[in-house]
């Protein structure tokens, strides 16, 4: 069994942030005595990712996803715990380590604004000291994969957001990194462009066996690319496992969709009616009751079509965070 590509043990990052109340009094007081509070952005996170694995890193804003990614890419120094990526300690930022990873952020721009992307790619070749023939082969292959042939000679400033993002991806992967940290890579892109980026990442992973840690607010990204997800909230891991298992663990319901051959009927005696739309009724029932309810529906009613599905993954995730919020509130001492 090979060593994990990424191994994180009890990783922590605490920021010390200044606090000041509003108003002149507070401003004057802060001249003499500055107050700070500690924010535990990442609070004892542990996981391991095998070479070639694609893992979705999920959590609401401020959960600690980006902070973790920044620690793993060497941009932030951990307050505690350990992280190794491809056998390197990221915070040392060794050149050999930086040559083997990449980080793509939805808002990052590493391309020269006024020049065609081809010129920026040449600079990347020089920075990573890539062998010219191999560089050209990789570049042309990526350009082909992302259908950029007509665009690489246009100044970057004339490209749309989606076209720029595709160019960013080419630039970020030209040195063929073995670990990809993708932080909201499809942010603000339309559905077609998101799909294109997703298939490119999947293809890169397949071709080069790269390890990918991906954060995204678009569940479609995660569903399309990752079999495994790590869910983080308030700097702590709430779940680490198969995406399919997430529903089983955190949502004990199934959604049954029923279409009757003749009109509609009141189905509230079978389960919680979620919606009725164009003759199709959605029912929520407990996972355990689903087989029995299905049998009754088929026996009692003229069913034209029936589906049994897990609830949408967005709803499951929302439930995970809601549960965590409730637990946190319950753990807080009562105020007076």
């Amino acid at each position, binding site marked *: 069994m*090979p060593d994990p*590509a990424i191994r994180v043990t009890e990783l922590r990052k605490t*920021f*010390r942030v200044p606090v000041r109340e509003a108003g002149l009094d507070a401003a004057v007081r802060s001249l003499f005595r500055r107050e700070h509070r500690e924010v535990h952005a990442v609070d004892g996170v542990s996981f391991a990712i095998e*070479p*070639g694995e694609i893992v979705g890193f999920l959590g609401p804003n401020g959960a600690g996803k980006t*902070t973790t990614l*920044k620690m793993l*890419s*060497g*941009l*932030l*120094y951990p307050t505690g715990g350990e992280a190794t990526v491809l056998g390197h300690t990221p*915070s040392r*930022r060794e*050149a*050999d380590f*930086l*040559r*083997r*990873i*990449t*980080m793509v*952020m939805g*808002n*990052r*721009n*590493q391309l*020269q604004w*006024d*020049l065609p992307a081809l*010129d*920026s790619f*040449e*600079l990347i*070749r*020089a*920075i*990573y*000291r*890539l*062998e010219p023939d*191999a*560089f050209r082969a*990789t570049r042309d292959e990526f350009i082909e994969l992302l259908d950029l042939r007509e665009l690489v000679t246009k100044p970057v400033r004339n490209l749309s957001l989606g076209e720029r993002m595709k160019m960013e991806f080419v630039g970020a992967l*030209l*040195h*063929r*990194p*073995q670990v990809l940290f993708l932080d909201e890579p499809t942010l603000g892109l339309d559905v077609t462009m998101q799909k294109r980026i997703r298939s490119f990442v999947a293809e890169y992973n397949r*071709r*080069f*066996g*790269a*390890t990918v840690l991906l954060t995204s607010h678009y569940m479609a990204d995660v569903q399309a690319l990752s079999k495994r997800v790590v869910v983080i909230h308030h700097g702590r891991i709430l779940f680490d496992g198969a995406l399919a298992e997430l529903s089983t663990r955190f949502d004990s319901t199934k959604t049954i969709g029923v279409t009757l051959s003749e009109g509609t009927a009141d189905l509230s005696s079978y389960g919680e009616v979620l919606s009725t739309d164009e003759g199709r009724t959605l029912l929520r029932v407990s996972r355990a009751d689903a087989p029995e309810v299905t049998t009754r529906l088929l026996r009692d009613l003229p069913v034209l079509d029936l589906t049994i599905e897990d609830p949408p993954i967005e709803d499951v995730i929302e439930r995970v965070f809601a549960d965590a919020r409730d637990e946190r509130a319950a753990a807080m001492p009562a105020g007076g």
Partner: protein
Amino acid sequence: MTTTAPTIGRGPLASIRGWLGLYGTQMRIAILSQIQYRVSNYFYMIGMVTEPVIYLVVWSTVARQQGGEVGGFTPGEFAAYYIVWTLVRNMNIALTPWAWEERVRGGELSGMLLRPVHPIHLDLAGLAGWKAVVILLWLPIAAFLSLIFQPTYSIEPIDVVVFLIAIWGAYVLRSMFLWLLGLVTFWTTRVGPVFDIFFTAELLLSGRLVPMSLMPDWAQRLADFLPFQWTFGFPIDALIGRLPPDQLLGGLAMQLLWIAISASIVAVSWRLAVRRFSAVGG
């Protein structure tokens, strides 16, 4: 797991090839970018000529009123000094310390830290490429100023050789110091007064405001302990033929010494600055 893309290899020769490739490519990209902005660059350079022309007119007038010269400078020599000034000023332009704040705030620094190359190399090479464009744009400006102010030069071949080295030395040296100033922003953004002190000292003790030989003795002695004159007055004096060979070579040695000192401080400060950035976040 597959390996990363093949590189040009390791070893001294590959390393030299790698550095030359990096500097060459970054300079080429800077030239291409600057050509896009050739008109605004030209207006910028014309605007920059205002400052030396004011100094030149004032000092030429004083020289004439003092019977033809001041401190050994005739009006023709003042003209030579300030025309070369315009080139040296453009050549020693370096990344301003204020740019660092934007680099940190705008996230550019994170991108720089993800690359396996110290960012000072890309800055040095980028602005060096810009200067290649500047020299071309400067030639007609110098010709125009020469027609109007009639400079007098007494140039030996060694002056030209030393000047060609000294203007790049001045650029590297000034880049190091402005980089150091920029790194202060990692600890505090309230550094305006520090920058003001630096730039005022530079104005007075570098030969930018007046040739150093016109400054009082105490100022000249003070300047000997500071790096400023090696970034401004020395290259100018070298080209207009005011320095004997020993001072020309001594000046290059001083540039080298200050570059070594400042580069060492930059190396240490950069490590501390990155640690600071890594601790507090971008």
